[in-house]
Each structure stands twice: as C-alpha cells, then as structure tokens.
C-alpha cells in the first residue's frame, strides 16, 4: 500500500541570478514497512529531498511538484498542518545527535515534549512514556537517564535518545539523515540494528539517507542513487548491488576501497574524474556527461531519458541499454 508518492519534486533556491535547481524531478513511492535508501555524495540533493518531505526547507528554497502523503499534498500544505504532521506522523533523525538535542534540557523532557505537543499529555504521563521509550531504544538505567543532560551521554546514547523522540508518536515514516555517520563503527552497528528492529516492530516506513553504500546494503529494500539533483538510478537494493547500470553508480561502487574477501589488494582505486557540476551551471545534456567514460555526443546535447532496465529498476542514461 502506497504511503508516500513523490511526484516530480524539484527544489529551487532563489539565487541572485534566478532560481538554482538543487533537486530536479525526483519521483519515488514508499510503501508501509518499506525501507528506502537515498544514496549520493555531497551536494547531490539527498538532504534537500528529505527536508522537502518534512516541509523544513530553508527560507530561500521552494519545492515544486507533489508530495502525496496519505492522499494529502505536503507541497501545498500550510505551516500549521505541517507542524501537526511533523514529529507525529513523519519524524526525522539527524546526523549529529549533539547539535540536534537541546543542551539545556534533560533528555527526558525532550522526549516528553513530543508527546505533550502532539498527544496533549500532562507532564507526568509524558515522562512515564518517555521512560518507556528510552528503555525501548536500549538506554541502560533509563530511569536515571531521564534527568540527564545530552552532554552526559555518549554519542551512541544521544542518537538513541533522538530515535526515542522520533518514535514517540509512532510515526508512519521515519526519515533518517546520515544517522550513524558521526558514530564509531561498533556503535553504528548497534544503532543500525536498533533502527531495523524498530521499523519492523512498529511497521513504519524508513527513508535512510546516506553516503555509505555498506549501510544502504545492510538496511534497505530499495535504493535511489542521486547525482547533481537527479535520481540517476533506482531499484531494489539487491538488484542494484548485483547489477549497477548507471555509469555514476558503477563509479561510486568501484571507488570504494574494498574489504571483499578480506584480502589486501594494493594498487589503484578506480576514480570518477572531475567534480560535481555547480548547481547553477546550465547544462543541456546529462549532468554527469563531463565525468562519464561512456559519454558520446548526444549525452552533451540532450537530457537523458529514464530508461527501464528491469523489474522496478530504472536508470537516467542515454546509453544504458547497451550494457544493462
């Protein structure tokens, strides 16, 4: 059952010399209980896409297209309506748990705040529920921790607190923007396990934004790969890992130092030459063409079509049919 339909979403930033597109024509759907990964490098538009879903875009940015959530278009929804949805039916966790928690309030109060706002609970009731949530996300001695301040917790524990606050109202969608990037690898493993378990248990849909292909592989059912504001490839995670079609996806995978087989391999890594184009650059053809080793004349002249290459597997490329 489709919970969320993003239909030709674009995000434009009002620049001095006209609008600059940060997200271009992004479309995807999300079902209940589905986990979707959005992967890409800095500036590809993955965070802007998430912020658009939450109605949290910066002032100078404007969303176009449609974001249908349970039949309601979030692009045209007013701020009061978005406030009611945010934290209640759509919740978000961010990369840096230290800056997203308020340092002058106890963690108990911050988790309880969500319930007091959205569920109109009294203080005692909200704190009791906060205690239950902290316990659920695996914070040891949760009762003592209710009155702790964020600086008294480790990075992993703070991220658990963020997750507890995000889950307080049992949202339909959890957006996680690089939730484990700031954490050590052993802690990351625990947090990913926790998110996976909670998504299954609560029946939420998860949108996980990350630059880490390993995280995408471990956690998500489907993945969309973004480059310079466009979705360049989308499909089931296992399909894409087995058969990456778009030259950018191929380059991204090849550039990783691998641990495959756990054998040491010297030598060079494959690289993607060049840099991401400036979002304000006017490019007639494919935005990846300048860095693409398959690029031919047409790639520089015409925007590429979205080509279906398998069950639920598409790539934005003129030539993809030649190899996929």
């Amino acid at each position, binding site marked *: 059952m489709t919970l969320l339909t993003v239909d030709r979403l674009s995000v434009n930033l009002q620049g001095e010399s006209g609008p600059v597109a940060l997200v271009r024509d992004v479309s995807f759907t999300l079902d209940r209980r589905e986990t979707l990964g959005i992967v890409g*490098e*800095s500036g590809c538009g993955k965070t802007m896409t998430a912020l658009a879903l939450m109605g949290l875009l910066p002032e100078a940015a404007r969303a176009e297209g449609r974001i249908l959530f349970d039949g309601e278009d979030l692009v045209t929804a007013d701020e009061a309506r978005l406030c009611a949805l945010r934290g209640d039916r759509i919740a978000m966790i961010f990369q840096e748990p230290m800056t997203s928690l308020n340092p002058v309030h106890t963690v108990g109060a911050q988790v309880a705040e969500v319930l007091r706002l959205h569920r109109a609970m009294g203080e005692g009731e909200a704190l009791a529920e906060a205690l239950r949530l902290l316990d659920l996300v695996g914070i*040891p001695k949760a009762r003592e921790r209710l009155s702790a301040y964020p600086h008294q917790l*480790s*990075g*992993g*524990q703070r991220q658990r607190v963020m997750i507890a606050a995000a889950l307080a109202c049992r949202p339909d969608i959890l957006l996680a923007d690089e939730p484990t990037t700031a954490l*050590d*690898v*052993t*802690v*990351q*493993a*625990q947090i*990913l*396990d926790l998110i996976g378990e909670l998504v299954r248990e609560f029946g939420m849909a998860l949108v996980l934004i990350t*630059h*880490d*292909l*390993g*995280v995408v*592989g*471990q*956690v998500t059912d489907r993945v969309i790969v973004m480059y310079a504001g466009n979705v360049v490839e989308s499909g089931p*995670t*296992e399909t894409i*890992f087995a058969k990456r079609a778009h030259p950018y996806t191929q*380059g*991204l995978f090849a*550039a*990783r*130092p*691998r*641990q495959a087989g*756990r*054998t*040491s*391999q*010297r*030598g*060079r*890594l*494959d*690289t*993607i030459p060049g*840099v991401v184009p400036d979002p304000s650059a006017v490019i007639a053809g494919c935005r990846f063409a300048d860095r693409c080793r398959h690029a031919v004349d047409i790639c520089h002249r015409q925007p590429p079509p979205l080509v279906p290459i398998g069950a639920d597997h598409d790539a934005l490329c003129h030539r993809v049919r030649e190899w996929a």
Partner: protein
Amino acid sequence: MSAPDILLEVTALERRFTLPRRHLLAAAPEVHALNAVDFTIARGHSFGVVGESGCGKSTLARLVMALDRPTAGSVSLLGRNLFALGPDELRLMRRHFQIVFQDPFGSLDPRFKVGRAIGEPLDALEPDTTRAERRERIAQSLADVGLKPADAGKYPHEFSGGQRQRIAIARALIVRPDLIVADEPVSALDVSVQAQVLNLMAELQERHGVTYMLISHDLAVVEHVAETIAVMYLGRIVEQGLAAQVFAAPRHPYTQALLDAVPSLERRDRSRRQRIPEMGASLDPYDPGCPFRARCPKAEARCAAERPGLREVAGGQRAACHFA
C-alpha cells in the same frame, strides 16, 4: 628487516593527562591516554593505526609529530629520539616529518593564498631558500599533487574539498619529508574524491619514497593503504601485524568485533550478529585486568585479574588477549 630500513621507532610510549581535582583534598585523577605503545615503520612503507574515538590514536599522532611530550618512552626518527633534542635541533628535524589533517576546510587559513600556505613550511624550516627557488618548489609541489602552478595565486575557498586536501598534501611535501603522518586524511571526503586522494598518496610513495603513518577509523581505507597495522583500544595496541594477515584472521576479540561491525549487503541476512556493548570500558588506569573485558564476549575470571600483554599469535602477528 634490517636495522637501517627503520625510519620511525616508537618505544614504550606513554602519555598521561592529569584531570582537575574533584575537590581540594582529593588526588588529581589521571587518564592514561597512551600506554606501552611500541612499533617501528620501515622506510617507504605505510603503517596504519585503527581504532575508535578515544583509543589514543590522535594522541599518538601528536607525539610522533613532537607536538606534545610523552610521560615516558621515546619516538626516534632516523635514529634520533625527538624528545632528547634541544629546540633548535628539533626544528631542524621537523623537515623530515610532516602532517596532513582530516579537515581540509579547517587546516588552510582562508586569508592566505594557496602559494603562501604551501610555502610556509619552507619559510619556517628552510629559511635560506631564495625567492626563485621558493617559487619553483611551490610549483613543483602543486604539480606533484596534480594542481597547476597558477593555483598558487588562488584562495582556499576557490577549491573543492578534494583539491584542498591535495593542497594540504602539497604543503606537507614541499620540505621533502621522509615521514608523513596522515590523520584521517580522507574521512571528510566523498567516496569518489577519497579514491583520487588515496591514489595520489600511493603515487607519491612510489615516486618519492614517502613513508606514511595513516590514522583512520575506516577499516577499508587502512586495509587499502597500509602494509602493517596496529589496532588500538583505550590507549593500548591490542593487535598488530601485517594488514593482510590481521584482516584475514583477526585474533583479538576487539578486532573481530570491529570487522564484524562494518555494514554490508552480504551481512544483512545473517542472524543478528554478536554486538559488543557500547559502554562498560574500564578507564581506571590501575585496574589490573584487560581493559576490553566488560565488552568482550570471551571474558572470563582471568581477564579481570590479569592484563594480557601483546604476544605473538602467528608469524609476525601479535595480539593482547589470553585467548588469542
């Protein structure tokens, strides 16, 4: 390995920090940031230091760079103990070792043109350089890292993150050092750019015979770059040896846990892995037991009573565990 091959020798290195007293008459508590660290790096090779936050890897880098003094032990470069040198001698030695930091945005002064930033080590360490030679060396250094001589006249903000990291490497190279300490050199970079910088480092090693001490939390990066590695936990080396060997057959439970925590597609369907708990590390410097025991799946009574020393567990591979 015969003795003349050894460029850097770290012996029984120890660093304690004194914390503020809890109250007037209390003893000042101490943190042992580094304990009994021993290793050597052969000329022209790469040595990797892996570990999570707080393991002491950055303290180690500061000591190797002689930016801090150890509580005990020595760091010898080219056979000379850096901490036995007078200030002038140390200054002369500094041209043999340079550092590249993690953050290419924070490590370049935004008000200095790139040429000035790159020339600075030359001004400090080889003040007799003529202006013409200085200009020549800056151009050579820029060429070495794949930038143009004309880039010397630009400001850091005109470059991308990957290019800035190249500038930082050019700055380290200009005095033609024997050793470059690279503290998380690619952690702030996107995957495709990270591959470019790692390739550049390998190229420079081949061309100039640079020796690297690479510090990273990213196991794949360390495995790709380093021939020999040390895994650190709470200020001690818990496992060391050839990278290929340690990654293929880790013997210390902490190394095993680290490798197991790396997310990947292959591991998604495995039954829930054994996770090591986040907290519970013993920080008491006078604790007689193994510092890892509270998180260790193999811990027994013996681990609380007796701290395991590093011992040979396979040809050239050493681990600090009673059960390795």
